[in-house]
């Protein structure tokens, strides 16, 4: 082997040496993923670099070939190791499996074998030679087929490796900028070198720069390791620990700038990671200037801090730690923030709860399962006098008294051991021995496993409450007694009974078996009521020397209480086996005077009278005072009663008289209650109904006696009277007697009131059967007359119809004759013709009037109303009547007064008929002068027709009858004018039908005026 120095080998040796150093360093950190691969990679690179250097330095072909082959050891392993390094570095905790590496290494191994045997098959180098360019010489080769296969494979591996590096760069936001640059250089450098070599752009022909590229790559990685601790600051740790952890972590470099920050910390301070990195801590924590100032130069700290306020207040555990490198120089600080807001909130709530328990107005006791007290609150201490220290470890039994029935405790334990809540009342004893009552709610506390771990008792002192309740009960009893006594007083009970009742009530209420009452009479007390075995008798007079205690109360005017009578010096001797203990004497005062003394006593020693009980006793003594004071009233009441009795007997007399009247009356008299049940009937009623005894009718409803068809109607009538309270009604009802006779009663019914309320009815009825029958007969007669009228009207209608046709012939021809239609007539002939005409006209009018009258009688006349004009009526009438007036030489004047209505609603035909009748009448009875027709307004609702003449007039005595049918005033006056028949009568009836009035004013010899007033009937 011969070598020649060439300057090109220096960098290659340098690269080789660096690579070896990198290999050593990486190997020493081989526990880190990718490190061992990096070590091997660096070795391979150094092999390639050194091999290449020796190839260049080789002086002959054989030397160059040999070292070129040695180079291939590196060349064939580098792509694989690069891939493995990149893969392992990228996938920190999942290194590439060995069999994958082995599989991928098959082809490089085969290639290496082929390289060393290429002289025999030319698959790697088909030709080789020394290539020389100036002072640079290397082995020139023509590559064989396998080389290109491997070349493609190698690039494939390199590409994948590079791909991982690039992904790493993209992903690792937490890396130092220089770390990224180092990795980029490592990824790119081999490619640049190789690119330059393959594209022929190398400064010296055939100088393969790929090895330099790899050198740069490993140096760059080494720089990352050496300077930037690329392998030490593990991306993995960041990923899995730092990034994921809930605590915030910030790394500051020596200058206080953010070198690293995890998402949790970023979220806490409100910056994004990319925003935060590189910023100064002062800037980052600008929102909390106080904190920043406080910790600006602090290296080491551990503290709880809070930021924000109210709802958004958060708590952190802040820890600051210095970061030093191996030689202990400070490289930065590590800040960790641990969010303890939740914990703080829980603490806070617990604090509140415990404060609530402490401040609770109810006593709270917590015990363990065995009943040992673990906690009592201050209220408990306040109530019982036991402090927490006193109570701890003790059993609540310390409070127990015999006042609470043992049953209560048994039931309490049963309930709470079953896991249920217990409510109840205890009578307990305080530390000072005082008794008190309390209600308790005791509930077990159950842990997650369902096991009872504690009992909590919440208790309230109800001593006062119970006392009030007891007092209320006593007051209630007192009121009851008061009520009873009031009733007794009203019932005029004997004084002694009354007093005994009051004293007994009082003694019962005050749990005192012994009771007595003594009334003051003169200078002595007289025993009025007592319990046996006291050595007294009712009515016994007791002097001052005997009942000393009672006298004491009498003199003091105040109750006197003795706690133990049996030991009292002045006690009475009695035969009672159970001697008195507590005794109370209450004076009974009327004004300033003591009129009696009540004494009560107990035999059970120690059972004293409470202040409330004494108050009750005083109340009762007042009551007795009241009763005694009312004795005068009682006496006067007795007198009043005697008076009342006398009045009553007077009343009874008067009642007897009335009874006699009622019982002998011819009318039926009876009474019912408000529901109509008969309470009383007089004998007349019984007789009329065919009843024997009054009992047969009492209690029955009055309706039972009314004939069934009428019952509902009658019932409604009297219900109405009941509701309206109308004092009297008259009604005629048909009733049935016992034997089925129908009777008509006309009855007056009055309501009976009590205190304004209708409580019943009283009826006076008369038998009106006979009157009713007469009425019915009349009604039948009336109906028959009506029927006859109908028949008459029909007959007349038919007859008139039959008469009119022949009359038509008579009137028609007579008129034609008279008017010379059939040639001129002689005077006699003309007179005859005229008579025939007039007779026919008379007959026609007669028929018309008869027909009208029949219609009116049968109530069949129909008025046909329409809008009509009084002016037109007047005009039409003048036209018709003018001729007949003229014939008699009379003036016919028509006047429409200004106040006449323009239209009226009426029957124009009948109006005409009325006027024609009146005017014809006027003309008929007037020899000279005038007939005037006026229409005028009578008042806002009525109008009037007035027909006046200057005729003969109507005598006063006839004025009343001229409107009756077929009346003639005086035939001498009417002369030959026959037939003052139906006209006026019909006129009058028509006016009546139209709702008007026909009036007449007349003086014989001066004239007559008819005034018809009619309603206007405005529509």
């Amino acid at each position, binding site marked *: 082997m011969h070598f020649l120095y060439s300057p090109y080998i220096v960098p290659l040796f340098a690269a080789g040496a660096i690579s070896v150093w990198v290999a050593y360093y990486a190997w020493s950190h081989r526990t880190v993923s990718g490190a061992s691969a990096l070590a091997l990679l660096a070795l391979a690179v150094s092999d390639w670099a050194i091999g290449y250097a020796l190839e260049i330095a080789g002086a002959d072909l054989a030397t160059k070939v040999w070292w070129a082959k040695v180079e291939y050891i590196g060349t064939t392993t580098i792509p694989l190791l690069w891939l493995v390094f990149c893969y392992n570095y990228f996938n920190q905790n999942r290194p590439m499996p060995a069999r994958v590496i082995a599989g991928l290494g098959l082809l490089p191994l085969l290639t290496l074998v082929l390289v060393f045997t290429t002289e025999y098959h030319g698959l790697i180098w088909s030709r080789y030679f020394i290539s020389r360019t100036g002072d640079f010489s290397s082995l020139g080769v023509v590559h064989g087929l396998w080389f290109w296969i491997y070349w493609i494979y190698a690039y494939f591996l390199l590409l994948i490796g590079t791909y991982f590096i690039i992904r790493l760069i993209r992903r690792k936001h937490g890396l130092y900028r220089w770390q990224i640059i180092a990795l980029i250089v490592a990824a790119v450098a081999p490619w640049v070198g190789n690119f330059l070599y393959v594209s022929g752009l190398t400064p010296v022909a055939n100088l393969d720069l790929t090895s330099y590229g790899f050198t740069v790559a490993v140096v760059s990685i080494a720089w990352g390791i050496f300077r930037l601790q690329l392998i030490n600051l593990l991306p993995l740790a960041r990923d899995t620990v730092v990034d994921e952890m809930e605590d915030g972590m910030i790394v500051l470099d020596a200058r206080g700038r953010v070198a690293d920050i995890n998402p949790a910390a970023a979220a806490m301070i409100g910056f994004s990671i990319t925003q935060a990195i590189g910023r100064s801590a002062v800037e980052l924590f600008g929102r909390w200037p106080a904190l920043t100032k406080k910790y600006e130069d602090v290296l080491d700290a551990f503290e709880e801090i809070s930021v924000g306020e109210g709802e958004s207040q958060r708590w952190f555990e802040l820890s600051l730690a210095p970061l030093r490198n191996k030689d202990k120089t400070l490289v930065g600080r590590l800040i960790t923030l641990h969010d303890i807001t939740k914990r703080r909130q829980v603490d806070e709530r617990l604090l509140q709860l415990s404060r609530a328990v402490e401040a609770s107005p109810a006593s709270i006791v917590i015990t363990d399962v065995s009943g040992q007290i673990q906690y009592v609150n201050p209220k408990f201490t306040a109530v019982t006098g036991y402090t927490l220290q006193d109570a701890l470890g003790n059993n609540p039994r310390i409070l127990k008294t015999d006042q609470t029935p043992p049953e209560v405790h048994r039931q309490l334990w049963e309930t709470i051991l079953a896991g249920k809540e217990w409510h109840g009342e205890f009578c307990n004893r305080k530390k000072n021995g005082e008794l008190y009552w309390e209600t308790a709610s005791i509930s077990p506390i159950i842990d997650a496993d369902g096991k009872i771990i504690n009992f909590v008792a919440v208790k309230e002192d109800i001593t006062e409450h119970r006392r009030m309740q007891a007092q209320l009960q006593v007051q209630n009893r007192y009121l009851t007694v008061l009520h009873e006594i009031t009733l007794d007083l009203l019932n005029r009970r004997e004084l002694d009974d009354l007093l005994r009742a009051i004293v007994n009530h009082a003694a019962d209420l005050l749990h005192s078996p012994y009771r007595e009452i003594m009334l003051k009479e003169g200078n002595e007390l007289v025993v009025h009521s007592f319990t046996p075995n006291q050595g007294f008798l009712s009515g016994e007079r007791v002097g001052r020397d005997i009942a000393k205690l009672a006298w004491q109360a009498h003199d003091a005017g105040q109750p006197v209480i003795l706690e133990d009578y049996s030991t009292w010096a002045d006690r009475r001797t009695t035969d009672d086996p159970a001697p008195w203990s507590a005794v109370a004497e209450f004076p009974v005062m009327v004004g300033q005077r003591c009129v009696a003394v009540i004494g009560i006593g107990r035999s059970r020693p120690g059972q004293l009278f409470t202040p409330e009980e004494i108050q009750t006793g005083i109340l009762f003594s007042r009551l007795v005072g009241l009763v005694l004071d009312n004795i005068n009233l009682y006496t006067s009441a007795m007198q009043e009663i005697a008076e009342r009795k006398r009045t009553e007997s007077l009343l009874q007399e008067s009642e007897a008289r009335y009874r006699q009247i009622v019982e002998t009356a011819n009318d039926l008299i009876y009474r019912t209650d408000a529901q109509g049940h008969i309470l009383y009937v007089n004998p007349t009623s019984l007789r009329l109904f065919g009843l024997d005894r009054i009992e047969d009718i009492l209690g029955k409803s009055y309706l039972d006696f009314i004939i069934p068809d009428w019952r509902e109607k009658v019932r409604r009538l009297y219900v109405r009277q009941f509701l309206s309270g109308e004092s009297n009604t008259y009604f005629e009802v048909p009733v049935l007697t016992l034997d089925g006779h129908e009777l008509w009663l006309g009855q007056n019914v009055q309501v009976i009131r009590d205190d304004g309320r209708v409580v019943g009815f009283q009826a006076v009825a008369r038998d009106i059967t006979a009157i009713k029958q007469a009425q019915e007969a009349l009604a039948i007669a009336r109906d028959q007359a009506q029927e006859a009228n109908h028949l008459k009207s029909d007959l007349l209608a038919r007859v*008139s*119809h039959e008469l009119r046709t022949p009359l038509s012939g*008579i009137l*028609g*021809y007579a008129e034609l004759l008279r008017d010379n239609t059939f040639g001129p007539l002689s005077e006699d002939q003309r007179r005859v013709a005229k008579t025939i005409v007039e007779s026919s*006209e008379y007959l026609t009018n007669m028929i018309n009037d008869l027909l009208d009258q029949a219609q009116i009688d049968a109530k069949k006349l129909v008025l*046909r109303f329409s809008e009509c004009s009084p002016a037109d009526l007047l005009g039409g009438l003048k036209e018709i009547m003018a001729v007949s007036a003229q014939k008699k030489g009379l003036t016919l004047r028509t006047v429409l007064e200004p106040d006449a209505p323009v239209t009226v609603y009426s029957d124009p035909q009948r109006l005409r008929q009325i006027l024609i009748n009146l005017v014809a009448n006027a003309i008929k009875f007037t020899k000279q002068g005038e007939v005037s027709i006026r229409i005028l307004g009578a008042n806002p609702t009525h109008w009037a027709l007035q027909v006046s003449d200057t005729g003969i007039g109507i005598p006063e005595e006839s004025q009343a009858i001229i409107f009756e049918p077929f009346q003639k005033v005086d035939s001498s006056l009417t002369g030959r004018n026959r037939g003052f028949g139906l006209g006026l009568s019909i006129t009058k009836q028509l006016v009546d039908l139209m709702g008007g009035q026909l009036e007449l004013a007349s003086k014989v010899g001066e004239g007559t005026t008819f005034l018809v007033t009619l309603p206007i009937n405005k529509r």
Partner: protein
Amino acid sequence: MSKPLALIIEDDFEIANIMSISLANEFETEQFADGRAALSRLAQVIPMLIILDLHLPSLSGTDIFARVRSDARLETTKVILCTADALRAESLRSQADIVLLKPISPAQLRQLASRLIGEPR
């Protein structure tokens, strides 16, 4: 100028004759005792006036009246109804131009007829 035509429909010959004579001065009159005959004549002529008795054999006056009133051709024709039935006269009064209750005075008929044809319909 010939006189206007008046049709007298009346089954009583004498009454019809009286009417005819009464109106002879002002009208050309034709008499019909039978309703059907009158109707067939009405199909040919347009009379100015019809005097119609309500009580007729074969076809009642009421029917003829209804036909006349419903015939647009006879719109200008005036009708005087005649009857011996006072109640019917009452009830028909609102429908016909004039209703006359028998007996009928020739003078009155003449007067009414002249006045009737003098007023417009």
